């Protein structure tokens, strides 16, 4: 694995010393240029309960066949797990030359057994970081929930899990939370006819991965706390609190030619007056970066120190995305207003504000969350929507 580049900054790189400090920071991760995309392992986790019978099953089968026959590259693989009241491996890893037997529908919906089956199936997988794993979880109902800690251990196998809610019966908020725990995104399918588009979109996303579910190690210094650690622009909550010590966080896949941004809040008990005050060390594979702040007594210097507008944009973007997920309209409007103001000095804030506003204008919560999931920042910080 070649080296990605990490860079961490604070809103201001100097602070009043001998005092406590609360500030915000951002870590950005960019894959090395010309990095090759990884071969894809696509694991379909499909609801085959009674409500899927008829149109549901036929659309899902059609979408699977479309991926297998038209989209898959020679190096890609696909596997299928089906679940109703219980879960089974329907098709194990197969490449373009393989076939998938037709699905049958009937029975209840149990998310818990589906996730357990996924974990035991992936446990026997020979993924060594050289393949990108994408699980696709599709349901049209509200099943018995899976345990959060089980869902969040999916990235340990180099997989992220995306969820598709067929919203006639599914609960988008629940499925979005599952996707977030498994570092994936939520896709919104108002009816079965939208399932094919979602399958295709997830497959196309899977083809652009350069680092599969990387693990970020964070060493937080004594007297420092990091909190509200959120991946932007998608607004994926990575962790709520990291105290002093070493932590390991699973991240989403790193996509070719994009910049992964991680916003966080920093709280320091007392800023040292001598040189750089170490806050944290971030490392991903062989790449490492340190975040520190310089303590000073010089008030004039402090007041006039410039604010890092890139960090400000990432911080606002995290607030806006979180608020959209919570459905807190007031907080969204406030964050957008602040980003618009920032747009006068940072053009990247402009493009991002436009897309966030677009998300807020969507008619359903499911659609809003899908737009958030599709937001990407290119290596220069300019935001765009991933195309299907």
């Amino acid at each position, binding site marked *: 694995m070649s080296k990605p580049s990490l860079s961490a900054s604070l*809103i*201001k790189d100097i*602070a*009043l010393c001998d005092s*406590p400090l*609360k*500030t915000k920071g951002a870590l950005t991760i960019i894959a090395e240029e010309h990095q090759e995309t990884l071969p894809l392992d696509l694991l379909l986790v499909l609801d085959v309960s009674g409500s899927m019978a008829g149109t549901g099953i036929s659309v899902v089968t059609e979408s699977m066949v479309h991926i297998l026959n038209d989209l898959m590259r020679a190096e890609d693989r696909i596997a299928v797990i089906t679940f109703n009241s219980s879960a089974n491996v329907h098709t194990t890893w197969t490449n373009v030359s393989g076939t998938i037997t037709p699905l049958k529908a009937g029975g209840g919906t149990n998310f818990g057994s589906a996730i357990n089956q996924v974990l035991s199936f992936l446990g026997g997988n020979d993924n060594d970081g050289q393949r990108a794993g994408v699980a696709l979880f599709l349901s049209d109902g509200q099943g018995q929930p899976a345990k959060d800690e089980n869902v969040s251990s999916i990235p340990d196998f180099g997989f992220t899990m995306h969820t598709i809610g067929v919203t006639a019966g599914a609960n988008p908020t629940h499925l979005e939370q599952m996707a977030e725990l498994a570092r994936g995104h939520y896709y919104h399918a108002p009816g079965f006819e939208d399932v094919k588009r979602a399958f295709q979109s997830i497959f196309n996303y899977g083809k652009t991965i350069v680092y599969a579910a990387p693990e970020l190690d964070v060493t937080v210094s004594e007297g420092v706390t990091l909190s509200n650690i959120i991946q932007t622009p998608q607004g994926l909550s990575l962790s709520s609190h990291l105290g002093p010590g070493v932590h390991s966080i699973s991240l989403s896949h790193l996509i070719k030619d994009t910049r992964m941004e991680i916003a966080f809040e920093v709280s320091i008990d007392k800023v040292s007056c001598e040189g750089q005050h170490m806050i944290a060390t971030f490392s991903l594979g062989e790449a490492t970066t340190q975040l520190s702040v310089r303590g000073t007594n010089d*008030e004039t210097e402090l007041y006039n120190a410039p604010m890092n507008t890139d960090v400000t944009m990432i911080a606002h973007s995290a607030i806006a995305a979180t608020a959209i997920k919570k459905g807190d309209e007031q907080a969204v409007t406030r964050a957008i207003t602040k980003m618009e103001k920032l747009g006068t*000095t940072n053009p990247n804030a402009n493009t991002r504000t436009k897309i966030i506003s677009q998300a807020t204008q969507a008619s359903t919560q499911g659609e809003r969350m899908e737009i958030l999931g599709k937001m990407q920042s290119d290596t220069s910080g300019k935001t765009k929507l991933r195309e299907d």
Partner: protein
Amino acid sequence: MECQDCNKLLDKSDLAAGICQGCTELLDNTQLQDLRQHLNIEGYKPPEITPPKREEAPIGLPESEECPSCNADLMESQLKDWRNGMECPWCQEPSIHIRQSSQPAISDEVGLEVIEQNTIPFLINNGPKVGTVIHIPHDKELGRNDFRKLLNEPEYLELIKHISSEHLILHYDESTNSVSIEDLGSTNGTYIDGSKVVGPIAKDLNYGHVLNIYNLSFCLASLDSRTLQVRHMPSNIVLHYPITTLPLNLHFGRQDEQSGREPWYRMAQVQLDNDIESLERLETISRRHLFMEIECPLEEISLKIWHEQNKEPWTIEGLKDIDSTTHQKPQSSMILEHEEILLKHGSNEFCLTIKQ
């Protein structure tokens, strides 16, 4: 001053961090400036710079005059020579000071020279010399100096100004007896029937086509046939239609059958570029309007005029037995050479004359 989110009283620590120390809400520039004022902390002032004292007056520029051809600034001895009537030392452009006094002499001299060269006869479509034939040299780069020599009336000087120093070439193909036009990347453009000629490919110029060198307008003169001259009176736009292939069909509407602009209208738009009043006047003519067909049985010339259905009629002077209000074709009337026919519609007026 309070934080807008958590109502904490903001102080110096918030200003220093650029962030509310209570709820970590980011403070924007306006809020930071307000807080600065509130806390009585002066804004950032760059160090003062005192401009160095000037000991002596700056050296002034000498008097100069610009050569209209190459835009070189002529100064001192060059300026003196230029004002005495000597040519520009940079581009050999004749001095404007001599042209004013002895212009006819020069153009007479040059006129002879032009006729001796290989030339193509053109009818002039605008200015005081409308309808007269000039001979323009072919297969040679033509620029404003050439046209100054060809058209020495003061009225043309204003039009010639817009011609580039190397504007176009007329190509003449002896084997097919055809003329084509190549634009040499001129500033204001060359047009055939109102369509811009874009280099480096030469575009064919046929009889009846109008050649515009920006707003100077010509058409090919046919020395061995009669010509129908159509003059739009208010704007003085003139077109010449050689009566070679008959019947000659004319249409006085703005659009042709393919819904493109009629050539006369395209040309009018080029020529009346800055004359909004005249352009607006033209707009009052309908897209499909008055039709005319000219035939030449034996020695006579007969004319048929008809009208687009439901269009406001034109009034026609100088023709007998013609009812222009009909949209039926078969009316006809005789016209004589050098007799003027006036077609009037609102504030527009076209004058038609047949010339030998």
